[in-house]
């Protein structure tokens, strides 16, 4: 709908920046682009983490009762009191990254690269950049800076609009 062809279009608002939540928006965006759908991602709040040149995404199970890791044929969850200990984030992040590699799941770096290659449009929220004092030069080159109106403009002409 964005251009004059019959191509469909999709937008995704990306609000989360942890290692786990980085996946859904990039998987959906790259797949949609591969299926001929014009895709726009709007990165706001913690989602901006995903645009940093140096991705250092982390995960911690604290307060996430649904998070369990496969272990010895079963599954194990980390009690909150352990997840709150120093080093728990590093440990969980390492475990998650190992699992991702072992299972043939793409890294976020790879998916982001594929998204850019596939001409996925990226908008970085100017307000969040100001709020958290992020510098443009700390972010990758592709994204344009814009605000809510930039997303609404694209979304109003898109077939699918998602919020992650």
């Amino acid at each position, binding site marked *: 709908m964005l251009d004059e062809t019959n191509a469909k279009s999709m937008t995704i608002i990306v609000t989360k920046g942890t290692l786990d939540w980085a996946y859904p928006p990039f998987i959906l965006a790259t797949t949609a682009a591969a*299926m001929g759908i014009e895709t726009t991602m709007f990165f706001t709040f913690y989602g901006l983490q995903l645009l940093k040149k140096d991705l250092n995404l982390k995960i911690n199970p604290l307060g996430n009762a649904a998070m369990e890791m496969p272990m010895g044929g079963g599954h194990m969850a980390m009690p909150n009191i352990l997840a709150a200990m120093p080093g728990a984030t590093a440990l969980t992040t390492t475990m998650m990254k190992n699992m991702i590699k072992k299972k*043939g799941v793409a890294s976020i770096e790879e998916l982001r690269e594929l998204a850019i290659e596939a001409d996925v449009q990226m908008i970085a929220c100017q307000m969040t950049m100001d709020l958290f004092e992020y510098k443009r030069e700390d972010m990758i080159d592709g994204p344009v800076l814009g605000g809510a109106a930039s997303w609404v403009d694209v979304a109003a002409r898109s077939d699918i609009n998602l919020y992650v």
Partner: protein
Amino acid sequence: MADQVLDAKGLNCPLPILRAKKALKDMPTGATLQILATDPGSVKDFEAFCRTTGNELMEHAQDGGVYTFLIKHTA
């Protein structure tokens, strides 16, 4: 025989689809691409991919844990 073969074994969603798209893009219309995958989700996904993009899923088969797809580049 397919004009080109893509080995996507061991890769998980969405990589088989992304690699297939990349391969198809550089192939002439009418050419065929054979894809080998081990992701069980790829069966439904390649059907969906072809339905949406208009490429033709000519056949798919399963041999042990390996799924084989033959796609004709028509779109």
